[in-house]
């Protein structure tokens, strides 16, 4: 698998990200929208890891571990935040469902000016 170059990974990431973005806009089901957001987050994670693997480090920083660990660290925190976000987001959906007995996002237009 060493034959892959950085652009391959980035292409996969960007395709996933775009699909996620389109999904957020076209779907009405908030749970699916959440899934699309997760999709986008994972695309970003993939990008982070690909850069972490392929980006050259400078000689001065080569002997410092954190110089090439930051990408992975970012992914760790993205995962943590994503977990928290899903927990809260799904809680909100539950609360809305309980309040209005449906969760069609197009019916929720209280922000209308």
């Amino acid at each position: 698998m060493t034959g892959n170059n950085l652009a391959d990974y980035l292409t996969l990431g960007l395709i996933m990200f775009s699909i996620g973005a389109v999904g957020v806009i076209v779907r009405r089901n908030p749970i699916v929208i959440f899934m699309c957001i997760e999709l986008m987050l994972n695309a970003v994670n993939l990008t982070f890891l690909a850069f972490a693997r392929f980006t050259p480090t400078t000689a001065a920083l080569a002997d410092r571990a954190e110089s090439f660990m930051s990408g992975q660290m970012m992914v760790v925190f993205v995962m943590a935040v994503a977990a928290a976000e899903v927990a809260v987001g799904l809680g909100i959906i539950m609360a809305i469902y309980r309040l209005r007995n449906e969760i069609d996002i197009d019916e929720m237009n209280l922000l209308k000016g």
Partner: protein
Amino acid sequence: MGNFELIWWVLALPVIGFLIQSLLGQRIVGLFGRTYGKKVAGTLAVLPIAAAFVLGAGLTLTLLDMPATSRSVVMTLFDWITVYSISIPFEVVIDPLSMTMVLVVTGIGSLIHLYATGYMAEERDYTRFFTYLNLFIAAMLILVLGNNLAMMFIGWEGVGLCSYLLIGFWYKDIANAKAANKAFITNRVGDWGFMLGMFAIVAFLGTNADRFPTGDGRYLSFDRMLPVLASLLSENPGIATLIALLLFVGAMGKSAQFPLYNWLPDAMAGPTPVSALIHAATMVTAGVVMVNRMHVVFEFSPVASGVVAVVGTFTALFAALIAFGQTDIKKVLAYSTVSQLGYMFVACGVGAYWAGMFHVVTHAFFKALLFLGSGAVIHAMAHEQDMRWYGNLRKYIPITTATMTVGWLAIIGVPYLFAGFYSKEAIIAAALGNHHATFLGGSTEFTGWLLLVGAALTTAYMTRMTLLTFGGAQGRWQQPETYEAAHADHHAHADHGHHADHGHHAHAHHHGHAHEDPHGFFYTDEEMERREALEPHEHHHHLTPEYKPKEVPVSMWVPLAVLALLSTGGTAYFMEHHHAFQNWLYPPFGGEHGTGLTMIKGHPVIDPEAVSGHPHGMLGNKMALVGLSVLVMLIGLAYAWAVYGKRLPDKEGFDMSRWAKFRLWAMNQFGYDAFILKLLVYEGGKTVGNACAALDQKVVDGIVNLTGVVAQGLGGLARQAQTGYVRGYALVMLMGGVALLVYLVSALSGGVR
């Protein structure tokens, strides 16, 4: 050089007195108890003024010792205003004119302060009164001593403020508050003229800055401004007329000349010492002082001088006629003051500036005397000011009668024996001999003849007042038929107490109200009760047929006696003898270039002989003029004696329906005051107010509302974008993100590849 530093003490002493009265006055009264505390506070109020007078007298003597050509000392305390090239220091000038006024202000001021300690003894706000009075002296001294127009203006406004505060001293009566407002607002018109004149001078000098001494921005200082003005205005008579007329508008307001005179009679609502000090002796002469100070400007404008003379003449006659319709003793004196101020302005108009100042001084003596005497009468007569109640008072209050008689003889101009004669004679002679002022292309000699008529009128109305007050066989308040007549015409009776001295007391008694502050705009009931408990309401005796007038206490008649002494011919004789006063103010040096202009250390001084001549023809003989004066005086005396010698004529009694038409007219100022009030306050004010309201509501509010409507419309448009659909927002976010990315890519890498 004498010790002219003392002038700062002259200025500081009244200020110190003011601070003591305002900050410590109530404590002092509290510390020593009501009776003694007021005496201590009163003493502390009189002493600084008296000390200032002593210092001023010393400085005047020093000035007298100096040669006439160097009698002008400018003292600077600090830089007050420096803006661009104009610098206005806090500076005073010590010269004959300013020191004359300092002596008048502090001398008569201290006498009136002394008088007021007795007159106001029953007053609750005793220290407040002296606070204002001391502040007034300080402001007046700044006015007369200031070496630039800005400082003069500070004093000008300061005395205006004190006048306002003192007219409205008994603020609980709405009539007094209205009178105070009237005085203040009418004076604003004059101040407008004064300020415009000041600005015109600055603008005029600014455009001719090359004529100004270089490196010195004191455009408003007299010792810099006046010489430059003297040389510039001779080339620009039009500008001279403009500046002179603007300044004269200022003088009109402060010195109560037609058409701005009508605040002064209403100002009698203030306590009588205030009427004597501010509205007769000092403040109202500020206009004359200012014209004297700026006489160079008037000198180069015969047209403006003519206006001054004619306005003065008209005011003198008009006010004298009105005085015949007045029943309030203080109102008579108020119109008399307006009339006499007219005389002073005639003198200034015809170029005899010194004669104007001379009359200021003598008038200060005898008019202060008359006012203080009227105060003594009012004091003795249970605060009744209506002369129709008086009569035969010579039997009850002999000292007051004697001193007031001196004042009466002084104002009617009894030859040689009394002060008024000398100054009035000088004014009439100068007016008859005028060859300076022009009016409608002709000389203003006619003003002299009209002033002679005015002298007859003065004699008549002053004699009327004196006879109604002191003459007659029996006091009218003791006569039952007077009572019946008065109560038959209840309206007239209630009317008179309206502007009365101690108006609120009189009011309360006439209408049987027990509590003060009927309008309730100052004290709550609890506060009122506390004040009553602190000092029980002083009971004023109502004027009943059994009432016995009592002579005034010593602190009140001593000033009367001193002023009576000053009003006799002695002082005026020494001032007039060998032109002493004239040469003191305007030393005759013939002048340079035949202009009659002398420079006394920067102050240009015009030789009065060069401008104001002597009467010619038959009147060239001095005795002829004296004879004429005596003749008109005798005519006035004869008329007054014939009408008022025995009793109050029916045509001026309590029954207003029997008043003759002229009398009614005169009482109402020939409709002038009502007309002005209607034109400018009620109708005109309402019209302007409605116009302003319309402008505000339609135009200004319209603009404001328009911005609101525009914002609302734009907001409505923007509102359409807020669909409330979350996915719509997400789409816009995506679009924005793409746009941002496209921009970044093109910006960072030079275009999308």
